[in-house]
């Protein structure tokens, strides 16, 4: 049982929570994730560690309301407990020996990209952050990124905030203008990471992606998170979640992420109906 010590709504569909988890906070590194279960009989879902405070003993998670579990989680408030909270899992992101990096985040993926940008910045690396959202209402962590980046470009699909367009447009411009990156680190929807990786491949820039797959145990036991990287099967939970973006089979990963689409839609509708009943 882990206590929720802070909760903040970042936008209508994205919530931040700080969780009291001293043992995990002691060890967590950017790029790692936790698995949680909201209540007895609940589903186990993986969420990437968005931040941690070793002194306070807290771990920050940021999640989008996509299915039954995240909606139930969002119902909890400060002072409530999360039934199960386990981590840190996965291999930490490699941030050593980098001098100049473009961090490309999309949507709620920015929550995962942020601690990496923060760590890079703290190590003296030049950080250019490109963060993309559908529209201005969905923008999150803009100030946080500004605090840890040498340059921040905000992109929105409809141009309602920052520049209009997708993140690859901004990344391409930066590269074309002569910026030379040791590495591009990109985290967001699979389709976004696919196109970022395709772009950087043209320029021969090493690219790391974070694969947030379907998972159960998170310790290498179920293989539900498997994906193909460089023609070989890898488990996102123990071999990743970071992989070489130029080697990942994104089309397969996108298909696999849709395995339980119908179930999720059904659960979401069921929860919304319950919510409607409560409101009435």
């Amino acid at each position, binding site marked *: 049982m882990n206590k929720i010590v802070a909760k903040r709504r970042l936008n209508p569909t994205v919530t931040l929570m700080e969780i009291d988890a001293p043992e995990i906070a002691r060890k967590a590194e950017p790029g790692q994730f936790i698995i949680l279960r909201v209540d007895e009989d609940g589903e186990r879902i993986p969420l990437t560690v968005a931040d941690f405070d070793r002194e306070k003993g807290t771990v920050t998670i940021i999640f989008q309301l996509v299915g*039954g579990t995240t909606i139930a989680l969002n119902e909890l408030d400060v002072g409530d407990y999360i039934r199960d909270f386990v*981590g*840190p899992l996965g291999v930490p992101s490699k941030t050593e020996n980098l001098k100049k990096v473009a961090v490309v985040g999309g949507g709620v993926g920015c929550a995962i990209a942020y601690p990496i940008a923060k760590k890079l910045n703290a190590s003296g690396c030049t950080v250019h952050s490109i963060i993309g959202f559908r529209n201005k209402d969905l923008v999150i962590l803009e100030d946080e990124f500004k605090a840890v980046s040498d340059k921040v470009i905000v992109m929105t699909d409809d141009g309602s905030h920052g520049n209009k367009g997708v993140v690859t447009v901004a990344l391409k411009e930066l590269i074309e203008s002569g910026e030379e990156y040791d590495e591009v680190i990109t985290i967001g929807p699979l389709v976004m990471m696919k196109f970022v990786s395709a772009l950087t491949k043209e320029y021969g820039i090493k690219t790391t992606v974070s694969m947030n797959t379907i998972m159960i145990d998170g310790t*290498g036991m*179920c*293989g539900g998170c498997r994906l193909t990287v460089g023609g070989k099967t890898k488990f996102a939970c123990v071999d990743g979640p970071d992989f070489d973006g130029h080697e990942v089979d994104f089309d397969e990963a996108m*298909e696999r992420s849709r395995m*339980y689409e119908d*179930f999720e839609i059904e659960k979401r509708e069921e929860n919304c109906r319950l919510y409607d009943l409560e409101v009435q």
Partner: protein
Amino acid sequence: MRRNMSLEKNKMPSQEPEVRKKNFLEVATGYTEEQAVDEAKRCLDCKHKPCIAGCPVRIEIPEFIQKVIDRDFEEAYQIITRSSSLPAVCGRVCPQETQCEEKCVRGIKGEPVGIGRLERFVADWHFKHSDTKVEKPKSNGHKVAVIGAGPAGLTCAGDLAKKGYDVTVFEALHEAGGVLVYGIPEFRLPISVVQKEIDTLKALGVKIETNMVIGRVLSIDELLEERGFEAVFIGTGAGLPRFMNIPGENLKGVYSANEFLTRVNLMKAYKKDASTPIQRAKKVAVVGGGNVAMDAARSALRLGAEKVYIVYRRSEAELPARLEEVEHAKEEGIIFKLLTNPVEILPDENKFVKGIKCVEMELGEPDSSGRRRPIEKENSEFVIDVDSVIMAIGTSPNPLIKATTKGLETENWGGIIVEEKTGKTSKDSVYAGGDAVTGAATVILAMGAGKEAAAAIDEEIQKRVKSKE
């Protein structure tokens, strides 16, 4: 007393196949007192007691059976628990036909004594009728850590706790039990049975910390150096699923048996209102011939599948599953495609499974395992229409402990290298046992290893105490 000279065991009362294949309730319902006493009387109480040697934890079998005849069921239970920490579990899942019962004199002509069924009866009787409180032994002040709350870890923890050790079991999942709760299905081993065994251990003073992934949140060195544990036992099992590396294995609808069974059992996806999703496929192929394959096939059937195939590359004689599981599976209508090997899984237009392409096999000369090697027949390809495939072809030890523990030697396939009979690893004060050492084996072998390690840990710590005096 009159011995029962019947050549056959008392039949195990069970749910009818047509009924049970539609529910997750336990298949075998257990002996009545009368049946148990009648079966116990089949024991000849022979002089050399070969059955005990067949038991990996050396239960005093004839002694407990005598107590069943005397209708002193509680005393029978106490005799079993001197050797076994999980009698209700072992009575259900042990492969008795290759252990105690294989050695039984009655088996020379006719069926051996139903030792497993009697063990189960005794344990169930105890949980149902006994109010004997487990007494917490007097503490000896020494702390031992156990990694993994499966059969090996729980046995090691129980034995050490009985000797007065302060034992903490660290479990990665949210529930203790290991393969007993994530792997073996409810209809073969109800979670409530496992829970009772775990409650007994807790009453002995064993602490269980769930949601602790050792290797990530704490390392073995930290447990020894910072957290005051004097010894560590690794019982992390063999949880890493193997795949065949054939085309189509990453299609939607292809599961490892671990994933499928974890969703069904631990995450309770068999319940209609469960929050963990599972594909309720109509036609399922399970690849493999072990107990795990039978469990997966029978679970798929209970989830509503109309046709479930076991696809196995050798013949019936080589099926590694317990005989009883194979018989139960057949009774329930599982279709056995023997001497059949998959070569490709075929997709539909949405990248879900549409079929499994197989080849026919024939048996050649014996291979290194002593079993006849299956050889592919030429031009024998055929397709079975299925919408889900479950790979139950084995598991390897989880690599996390190995990757995060300096000085721990392992085989190149991942098994932790230990000294025989003690479970001592290459690292000081660290012991290991169960599937983490042997690769996937049985619950009882893991328990045997946990038991031996507990004795060795006790010996080492007591030796240290003496040398300080």
